[in-house]
């Protein structure tokens, strides 16, 4: 019983305390808030390490049991280990082991590798992965968009106007029409949805603090 009650009590007490803190315009109140943010950052950097250990376990099991696609797991683990090593050593302030020339300055070979892995591998891989979505979005739109009713025509027209206004921004009046669509009807819908989502977020937060929403506790024990 305590296994569920203690976390619920902690959520209630901390939630109410942090809400009250917001309304106390005192230096100490601000100190408490700043300290809590710092403690939060410390405690939850361990969550990242836990996620990392899950990643390693997952790929290690795949390799051990030779599951489907296990050949790619050493690649992922290898890339992770290499980037971690060069990052941990290369980002250390004042690091100058094995100096090499990088853009006219002397840096450690670890710093050099870290920057190049980031600029010439991570960035191109990430940008290309998201740019490929352009093809999928276009193909999905071609298959699913049909101007069958007034509201579907509105959706299609708004999409075309915004796209054309970006392409032909300097060709009047396309740029102006596109800006109007974005700042008036689009903004009205976005703001309406945003207000609703914010109210829903507040309601969910209250449910968590009051212990009505307790899905995060997992199981029943």
């Amino acid at each position, binding site marked *: 019983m305590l296994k569920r009650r203690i976390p619920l009590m902690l959520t209630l007490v901390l939630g109410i305390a942090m809400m009250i803190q917001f309304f106390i315009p005192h230096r100490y109140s601000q100190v408490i808030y700043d300290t809590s943010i710092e*403690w*939060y950052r410390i*405690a939850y950097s361990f969550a990242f390490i836990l996620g990392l250990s899950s990643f390693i376990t997952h790929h290690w099991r795949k390799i051990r049991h030779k599951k489907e696609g296990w050949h790619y797991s050493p690649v*992922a683990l290898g890339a992770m280990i290499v*980037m971690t090593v060069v990052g941990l050593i290369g980002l250390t302030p004042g690091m100058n082991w094995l100096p090499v020339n990088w853009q006219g300055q002397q840096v450690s070979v670890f710093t050099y590798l870290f920057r190049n892995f980031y600029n010439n591998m991570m960035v191109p891989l990430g940008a290309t*992965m998201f740019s490929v979505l352009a093809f999928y*979005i276009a193909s999905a739109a071609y298959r699913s968009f049909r101007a069958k009713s007034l509201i579907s025509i509105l959706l299609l027209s708004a999409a075309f106007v915004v796209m054309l206004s970006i392409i032909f921004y300097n060709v009047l009046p396309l740029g102006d029409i596109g800006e109007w669509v974005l700042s008036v009807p689009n903004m009205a819908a976005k703001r309406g949805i945003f207000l609703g989502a914010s109210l829903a977020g507040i309601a969910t*937060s209250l449910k968590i603090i009051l212990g009505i929403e307790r899905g995060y506790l997992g199981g029943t024990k």
Partner: protein
Amino acid sequence: MNLPFSTDWWVWIAAICTLAMFSILYRDNPIYRVAEHIFVGLALGYGLSITWHQALWPIALRPLFVEGQLILIIPFCIGLLFFTRIIPKLSWLVRIPIALALGWGSGVSIPRVFRASIFHQMKASLVRPEMFEGSVWPGIWAIILLLGILATLSYFFFSRKEKGPLTPVSKVGIVFIMIGFGATFGLTVMSRISLLIGRVQFLLRDWLYIIPK
């Protein structure tokens, strides 16, 4: 000798990574899968290095073990509780850091969301007399904006059965929502297209020198 392509081997690596990712457009293949796994591994290694250098070492380990700020044992121990999920008998303790995070996050967010996302948004949506000074159009657009927000909100009002005066208002709401979704779709497509242009520019300009720099 001037070669018609880049001789920087890091540019070649970036080009190979780009082409490997584009190979998915043909079909799922081992080259794409290798590139995908390299990306995941690099991203995790990058995240770990940044977490260490920006959080764990400067605000946790150094103050605690080098500068002797013993009070930091508390967040340190809360963080360590995450690892109790590995030990079956103590696994329930992992609920404590999660409960603290949710309690803290909820308590911090409620008043701030009220202020930033409700009051400030409502204030920005009000029609004010000065909007009609000079030209009448900004005032008219502000009225349309306000009516659009109210109509959109009425579309998502499920507490009462949709009948009476609420029906035409929510029908106007769906018009605004569809324009909003269309505009969002257009913006998303254009952002992906600009990424695609960036990658093609890299291949043709920085790697193959087909486009002049």
